């Protein structure tokens, strides 16, 4: 929002008409060089004879006027105000368990890979639910907590952006991924603690059964949303392995059994979605988070970004132009 912090300074613009009135009344007088030669009309006001010089004189006056106006604008302290919510109460905790196995590179969600689509909805969600804490567990053959639940959205988004397919090997250790999220949420003081699992596959790695992990979710009173992403059939796939740097491309025969994922949601009294497009994914997460996100108290902090420097710089530029034309081109004395 644009605002002047010192608008009373605009009263100084009244000096412009005052200047013209005083000039007209003859209070302000330029030096008239009284020549001793009688035929030069030395006592009358000087005026340029050449049209180009007349125009230059007019331009220099215009520059002077603009310089003054911009100086007054700078003095009025133009600012851009940014109002920011400062949260004074605890929000909910969300941990995303994101599958980063190579099959997530299948390009079948609205012309995006499953992995890109998942990252996009997570990003949008973290923007929408400011003040809540977000954590990230990356899951493939191995599992890693990349971000513990944090209110530092910048760090969360940076780490999410850095996550690449194939970083943790091939496979999906769903049970271990869920358990890791539970482990890092059990001691949280947030009233609502949620795990959001986004995967496209069956559990085929790790030493913990997904069923056990789902029971742990329920045992610890956490909310669980299970999202199976992707379509069935042959889908194009292309990715660069993060560890070897090799590029893989071809077709993936996608036929994962969503019933196994829905069972996890059933066990933990959670929600399940088989998402085949971005819209349904967004909608589902919106509904889920609306039900689980805490209403937080906050106050508004206003950050002020001063903008006077731009106006002042322009004003000084006009001053320099004005002086250049008057002194160098028109050879004014004063």
């Amino acid at each position, binding site marked *: 929002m644009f*605002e002047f912090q*010192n608008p009373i300074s605009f009263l100084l613009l009244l*000096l412009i008409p005052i200047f013209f009135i005083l000039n007209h009344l003859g*209070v*302000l*007088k*330029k*030096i008239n060089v*009284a020549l*001793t030669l009688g035929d030069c009309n030395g006592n009358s006001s000087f005026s340029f004879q050449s049209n180009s010089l007349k125009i230059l004189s007019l331009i220099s006056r215009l520059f002077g006027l603009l310089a003054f106006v911009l*100086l007054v604008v*700078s*003095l009025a302290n133009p600012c851009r105000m940014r109002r*920011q919510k*400062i949260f*004074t109460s605890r929000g909910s905790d969300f941990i995303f368990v994101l599958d980063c196995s190579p099959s997530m590179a299948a390009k079948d969600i609205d012309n995006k890979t499953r992995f890109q689509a998942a990252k996009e909805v997570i990003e949008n969600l973290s923007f929408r639910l400011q003040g809540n*804490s977000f954590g990230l567990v990356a899951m493939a053959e191995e*599992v890693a*907590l990349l*971000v*513990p*639940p*944090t*209110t*530092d*959205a*910048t*760090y*969360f988004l940076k780490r999410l952006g850095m996550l690449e397919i194939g970083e943790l090997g091939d496979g999906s250790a769903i049970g*271990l991924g869920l*358990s*890791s999220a539970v*482990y*890092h*949420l*059990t*001691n*949280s*003081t*947030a*009233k609502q603690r949620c795990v959001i699992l986004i995967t496209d596959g069956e559990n085929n790695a790790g030493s913990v059964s997904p069923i*056990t992990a789902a029971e*742990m979710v329920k*045992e610890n009173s956490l909310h669980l949303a299970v999202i199976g992403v992707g379509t069935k059939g042959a889908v194009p796939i292309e990715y660069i392995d993060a560890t070897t740097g090799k590029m893989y491309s071809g077709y993936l025969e996608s036929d994962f059994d969503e019933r196994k994922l829905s069972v996890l949601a059933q066990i933990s009294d959670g929600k399940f979605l088989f998402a085949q497009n971005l819209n349904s994914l967004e909608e589902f997460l919106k509904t889920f988070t609306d039900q689980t996100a805490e209403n937080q108290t906050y*106050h*508004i*902090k*206003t950050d002020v970004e*001063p903008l*006077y420097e731009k106006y*002042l*710089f322009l004003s*000084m530029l006009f*001053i*320099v132009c004005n*002086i250049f034309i008057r*002194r*160098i081109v028109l050879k004014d*004395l*004063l």
Partner: protein
Amino acid sequence: MIFDKPVFGLLIFLIIPAFLMLIKRLKGLNVLPKSFFKNSSRIKKRIITSFFFNALAWICLCIALTSPYFGQKQVSVQKTGMALSVLLDISHSMETKDFPVNNHSRLYASTEFAKTILKKLPENVPISVVIVKGEGQIAVPLTEDRRAVENFLKIASPQLISTPGSNPAGGILRAAESFPHSIGMSSTILFFTDAEELSGDLYNALLTTVKSGIKIIIVGMGDKNEKEIVTGDGGKAMSALREDALLEKIERVNNINRRSNIQPQVFYVNGGDSSALSRVFNLVLPQREIHDNATILDTEIQSIPRFRLFLFLALIFFILGMLFCQILPDFLGKISLITVIFLSCSSENHNRIQILSGILDYKTQNYNEATAEFLKGEELADLQENSVLKSVSGFNLATTYLVLNENDVAADKFDTIETTDFLNFPLEFNKGIVAHRKGDNISAARHFKNALKIDPSNVDAKINLEIVQSKIPMASSENQQQETQVSESSETSPMTEGIFSLIKEADGKRWQSQQKTSASNSPDY
């Protein structure tokens, strides 16, 4: 004086060609016969005076463009709860085994110290871990997940950052960044270091961080006597706890605060002292912040921007330049008189202006500024023993807190206000609103009734009274419902315990796998 953009100061040198041109023009005038001009010396004087004022104006404009700051002011900031950033110096010198207690390495002693402090802190205090060597890095972002923090502290080592060197300033700035802007918490950095500084500017980093309202506690680790150590590149260097140099920097920063009557914000504790733990704990968690999520009023120090002063001066000099060049002498006297009258305005009503300024800020929703203005107004009224203005400032202050949803602070403030006739009604009315927000509808109803006794015609008070009265019977059952929600003490089963220890191990392994070795010719200790 500090300049944000000093490079614009170079524009001042444009005066030099202008000055040379002036000399040339004046010489040009000398060439003409004296009889050519009437009063030629007067014209020269006018030219020189005009140049002088215009040059002054130009200098002022250039200074304004550099964004000058001088002087400091305190700004009141509301904070709820506290956040802590543990900053660990992981440079190679921290591996020296000279910690006075048990001869542990400085780094090991630091992590053990940090763990002990963390165990004593309430669970809802979010913590971040930042590590610093040649550069600072956020290792664990601000989180309540103590498991992630403790798992990291176990594996902290110089191999986690490949950039060689020791840059405590970079660490301080990174730790300050680890507090998100969207949290209104009282922030503290707990820095474990031996104060070996090979790069960066620690003094400026401390100053910048303190100015943004962050408290810094530095815990010195190691022995003050030098010891030969092996550096990261395999060479040898002498290392010790550089306490004196560190204390000198801390003193300089704190002196700046003292000059503005602000409490010091940088503290030093020698980690080897027997009372170090309790001293650090008391500094990390002062008594006032022990209550969960208590709202406190903290102060931030802000440098005062002065560009407007220089712009104003520039404008005056330009006008003076023009007057001396163009205006008639007798008119100058009149202008001067008006200027003197204008400038000699009395400052008797300073506190009224303060309140007015606060109201303007309030109306434009700059509530933090408004709070500061009303606080100053109240202080001034107190000094002048003006009870009416004190009550008005206090009332405005409390109302601002109310708008900011700081109900407890607002309620306390309303209770301390001395009533005057014209404040009786709004005071009772606002007290009613605070009580309602705090869920005490019985008190709210009483306050609205009191307000109606003072002004029976007020419709808003009548409506509010009806609303709170309708909620009184429901209140008790709602409270019962809320109590069941929060604490769920989970007794974990042996299987869950087993899985958790598996994950704990995996987290530790992952951190260790991120260790790197540095390859550089820069000093690395």
